[in-house]
């Protein structure tokens, strides 16, 4: 296993820059998840590491080698595709051993590695089947097996779970986490699903519009988002966002003019536009007056908890987590409270205050 380091990587399709100055280090044996909305460049970054996309400038290092000009096979990577990309005319065993055949690996060695991978992934009874005779989850395991047998320096996963149904996705997610522990592999994993990112990653890389917005441990990203984009992207339901104008020391006004008290950092001054962020689970709904007032729209009940969807006086859509009954009915005006320690403040340019 090896570390991957990417420095000053740039890539464009004609006039469109898809990767703008990417710098990233993936430690040996760590599980790094690239996450972001569609079109943010996360898949392109992964494919650049794999060598399937040429880059315009910058360097990609795997281990101690700069691999920019190497073919995918020479980079000692293995990729698991979203569509699995199993060879349809070969059975599971041949699919897994196919790459080794071309690397001139001895037959017994191929057999041994395929058997070992099949054992790890519980594919032994399926070795003689063709891909079309397998279920989605089994195909996914074969695709992972094909990566394992090559003993690569780095595993690359491109949204491997997005074609599976919800229940299977949870199972396979756990399988992948176990596999990472077992193989002590360096993994770069692309997903748009932040739950996958939070549960699997040692380190999450949040990308947006070809840039890295923040790199950090999952909970760091959750509790200390570096900017408004990360704050909104990580967490489900998304963080509540309220734009404010600073009106004095430790006071700010909402768009509708209601004044609220908060402890503001010294760097802001009167008249500054700032943004307040509060996660739904930190917001409580009360019948009386609260820090903010809002009208109840819909209550979603999920079982042990529920979500109240509200519209604030100044027109923002807010979500508050409910434990137990909602304190009112649709159309009622309610108060919203939150503790000072649970708020996130962002400057006008989106960076954390």
């Amino acid at each position, binding site marked *: 296993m090896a570390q991957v380091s990417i420095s000053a990587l740039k890539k464009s399709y004609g006039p469109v820059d898809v990767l703008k100055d990417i710098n990233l280090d993936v430690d040996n044996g760590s599980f790094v998840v690239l996450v972001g909305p569609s079109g943010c460049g996360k898949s392109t970054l992964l494919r650049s590491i*794999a*060598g*399937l996309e040429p880059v315009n400038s910058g360097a990609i290092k795997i281990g101690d080698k700069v691999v920019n000009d190497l*073919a*995918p*096979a*020479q980079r000692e*990577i*293995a*990729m698991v*595709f*979203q*569509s*699995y*990309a*199993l*060879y*349809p*005319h070969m059975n599971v065993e041949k699919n897994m051993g*196919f*790459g080794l055949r*071309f*690397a001139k690996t001895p037959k017994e060695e191929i057999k041994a590695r395929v058997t070992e991978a099949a054992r790890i992934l519980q594919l032994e009874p399926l070795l003689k089947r*063709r*891909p*079309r*005779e*397998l279920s*989605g989850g089994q*195909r996914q395991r074969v695709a992972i097996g*094909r990566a394992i047998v*090559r003993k690569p320096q780095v595993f690359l996963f491109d949204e491997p779970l997005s*074609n599976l149904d919800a229940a299977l996705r949870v199972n396979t997610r756990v399988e992948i986490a176990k596999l990472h522990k077992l193989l002590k592999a360096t993994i770069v994993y692309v997903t748009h699903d932040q739950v996958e990112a939070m549960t699997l990653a040692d380190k999450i890389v949040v990308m947006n519009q070809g840039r890295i917005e923040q790199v950090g441990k999952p909970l760091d990203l959750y509790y200390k988002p570096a900017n408004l984009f990360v704050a909104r992207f990580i967490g489900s339901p998304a963080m509540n966002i309220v734009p404010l104008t600073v009106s004095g020391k430790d006071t700010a006004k909402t768009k509708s003019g209601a004044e609220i008290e908060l402890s503001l950092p010294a760097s802001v001054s009167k008249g500054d536009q700032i943004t307040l962020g509060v996660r739904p689970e930190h917001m409580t709904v009360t019948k009386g007056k609260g820090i903010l007032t809002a009208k109840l729209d819909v209550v979603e009940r999920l079982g042990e908890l529920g979500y109240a969807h509200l519209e604030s006086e100044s027109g923002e859509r807010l979500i508050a987590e409910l434990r137990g009954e909602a304190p009112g009915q649709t159309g009622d005006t309610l108060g919203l409270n939150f503790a000072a320690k649970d708020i996130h403040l962002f400057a006008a340019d989106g960076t954390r205050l």
Partner: protein
Amino acid sequence: MNVKRAISKTSVHVVLVAYTCLALFPILLVIFNSFKAKRAIFLSPLTPPLPTTFDLIGYNRVFSDGAIGTYYMNSIIVTLGTIFFTLLFGGMAGWALSEYKFRFNKVLGLYLAIGIMVPIRLGSVAIISMIAGLNLINTLTALICVYVAQNLPLAVFILSEFMTQIPKDLREAARCDGLSEYNIFFYIVLPLLRPAMATVAVFTMIPVWNDLWFPLILAPSGGKQTITLGVQQFLGQYVTDWNAVLAALSTAIVPVLIFYILFSRQLIRGLTSGAVK
């Protein structure tokens, strides 16, 4: 409603059966008469062979003629050679055009499309002088070359169309697995293209097998005649051995029928199912 549907279904089949009869009638007539004595062919050409008129003289004469075997062999070699090289070069060209983006890609594709539209026989004179210049007159190589050129444009067109349907992820997976571009073509693309190749093989085979023009101008003698040309020896200016002609034509159907059955087995669809998703 059901009656209506039944009527429309039957009428479709009536039309199809009528067309089949029309298409098969001349072939049946040839086969019937090939088993009849010469008098019966002329007196009652439309009746099937009866015990009184049954005669194998045509077949005897064809099989006792030593050269006919050679002519069959020539036809088979030419047809199979043409199919092989058309599929190989057509596949490679189709792969290049569909997979790689390079300058003149579109122009080349268009150039090949023009090849489909212009009949190759318009170039007969140029082809003869070229083949003569290469010293290939009266060789099977000449025929194979010309037929490959004739069939290549359509083959490239059909195969590249099919290749675009092979999922991109498969080729990229193969690249990650360390296959060279040639190996991707031979180990991944060709096996997945089997149905398309069978289609092209059938399209290629029938006109080549039946062609009279190029054998006549490029390989008319020297024991290199194809079967369609070989039959001509039974057609004389004054006397025609109709028994032998009909028997030779009937037997000429057999190999092409066998090829067709072999290829049509490959025309199974859905070979790529299970590759992705």
